[in-house]
């Protein structure tokens, strides 16, 4: 009798362990990256929830007039940035004040938006949904539309066990999809893992990068989760003072988030207002006399780089492009969910 109970107990424990394993075990942590910052205990990854988040990400139902989806400004083919658009777009042909940032490796980010106004990935989507110059919607109205939709109640049920549609569920699903956007298969990554080698130019560029750039654009994520004044002159048509807008502390004036340098070929133009189209313009900026008026925290005077050295740095930066990530169809438009009829015809 006692032995039977013992066996039953062990069986229950084991099956529970397997179930648990199924929920948390997702291969999105590359071995050469630090551990993700995102707290998965509050939102354990689940394939059904990821699919729901993916559908929401691509569905213009999130915008007031059904014209704009997250993917409108965060296109999968451009590493989830808005290539060739300096400033973000929104409903009614609105133009925003900042460049739509690329979305990848978000699980390692501790603050979101160019000024760090959002502290957690789960609440980030509220900002574009509610912004009158982005999606112009409200979460409450999105919930009503999703409830009335022919597809979503079923997908919420698949994901959460019942078809209740809440703000928490919408936002956490969007987070889950975005957390799977991991870019870790560039040439740089293959070199890091000993599977490839840099050519001489890339190798020179890498050494120069480590000397001049790595303090802020720190390997292997190529950002350091901080906010810096990089000496850009204020664009007087925008008058954007960055982090100061939020904290009203003079120390935060003109500080913007240090962006990752991965996937730069897909994510131009550069800087918080998309003012530079070419990487060389960025390097020219850092080599110019930018610290004359404002004391910069990181750069002690302009970078001393020859033209060839700039070319080498750019050659290295291009090894951070990750076409495997950009063309990974698992992150693309979910036709089977959003256009099920068309799928049937195939």
């Amino acid at each position, binding site marked *: 009798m006692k032995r039977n109970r013992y066996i039953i107990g062990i069986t229950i424990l084991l099956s529970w362990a397997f179930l648990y394993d199924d929920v948390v075990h997702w291969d999105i942590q590359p071995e050469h990256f630090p551990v993700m910052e995102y707290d998965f205990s509050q939102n354990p990854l689940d394939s059904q929830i990821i699919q729901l988040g993916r559908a929401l990400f691509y569905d213009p139902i999130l915008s007031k007039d059904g014209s704009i989806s997250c993917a409108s400004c965060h296109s999968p083919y451009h590493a989830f940035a808005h290539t060739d658009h300096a400033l973000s777009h929104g409903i009614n042909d609105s133009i925003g004040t900042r460049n739509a940032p690329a979305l990848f490796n978000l699980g390692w980010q501790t603050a979101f938006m160019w000024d760090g106004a959002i*502290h*957690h990935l789960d609440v980030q989507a509220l900002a574009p949904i509610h912004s009158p110059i982005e999606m112009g919607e409200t979460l409450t109205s999105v919930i009503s539309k999703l409830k009335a939709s022919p597809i979503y109640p079923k997908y919420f049920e698949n994901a959460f066990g019942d078809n209740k549609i809440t703000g*928490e569920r919408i936002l956490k699903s969007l987070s889950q999809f975005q957390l799977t956007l991991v870019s870790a298969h560039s040439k740089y990554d293959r070199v890091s893992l000993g599977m490839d080698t840099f050519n001489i130019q890339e190798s020179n560029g890498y050494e120069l990068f480590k000397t001049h750039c790595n303090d802020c654009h720190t390997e292997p994520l190529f950002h350091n989760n901080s906010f810096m004044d990089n000496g850009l002159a204020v664009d007087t048509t925008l008058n954007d003072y960055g982090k100061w807008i939020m904290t*009203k502390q003079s120390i935060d004036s003109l500080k913007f988030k240090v962006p990752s340098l991965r996937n730069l070929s897909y994510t131009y133009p550069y800087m918080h207002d998309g003012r530079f189209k070419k990487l060389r313009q960025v390097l020219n900026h850092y080599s110019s006399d930018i610290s004359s008026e404002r004391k910069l925290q990181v750069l002690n005077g302009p970078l001393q780089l020859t033209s060839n050295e700039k070319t080498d740095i750019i050659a290295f930066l291009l090894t951070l492009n990750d076409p495997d990530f950009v063309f990974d169809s698992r992150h693309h438009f979910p036709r089977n969910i959003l256009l099920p009829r068309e799928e049937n015809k195939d």
Partner: protein
Amino acid sequence: MEKICLIIIIIFLSNGLHGQTEVRFHAIHQGESLIIDADMDEWNGTDTTIQQFRCYLSGFEFFLNGKAVYQQEESYHLIDFSKDGKQSILLNTPEAITYDEMVFNLGIDSTKSDSGISGGDLDPMHGMYWTWQSGYIFFKLEGQSKDCPSRNNEFQFHIGGFLYPFNANRKIRLKTQIKKTINIHINLDPLLENIDWNEQNHIMSPSTEAMELADFITTIFSIPNEKE
């Protein structure tokens, strides 16, 4: 077998030992209890109307002689004076509890705020989460005042946020007798009288002004003396 019975009895008894304390909130406007109802005559012969009043109250505790004797777990409550059933909360207090003070927060502590989003009363769908920057709105009061020079005489006070340097979370301590139902008054009259309408009718982000208002709001909570 005897052991299992004993455990069941103990569990049953320990549950049985829980009493419940109800905490009811009453917003006072123009000296009277406020109910926000779409059908009512908003002005009703007065100078101000309230069209929306909601707040987050959290971390409910009872103290005796300065020491905590009861703490509610996961204690986050949205109090809304325009929704039925959202003006009172239940605390599972032990039957024999004695206390002389009730303590709670106006707002959501920074640990909870920092941990992303939650459901229930904390779901951002209730419109009590800022969308363009992070943080819950702790205290949302909207209405009109005849003295307010803004468009349609409207005022909006959205007080909240937890990020440095503007954390609006405030502790409120109220002396109380032991009761089955504790009534708490939130007196909007001194708050509205204190406002210089020409200077202040629109606070919608964390700021120094919002911090000052949060300080003032802690003084409008009271437990009136009642005969049991």
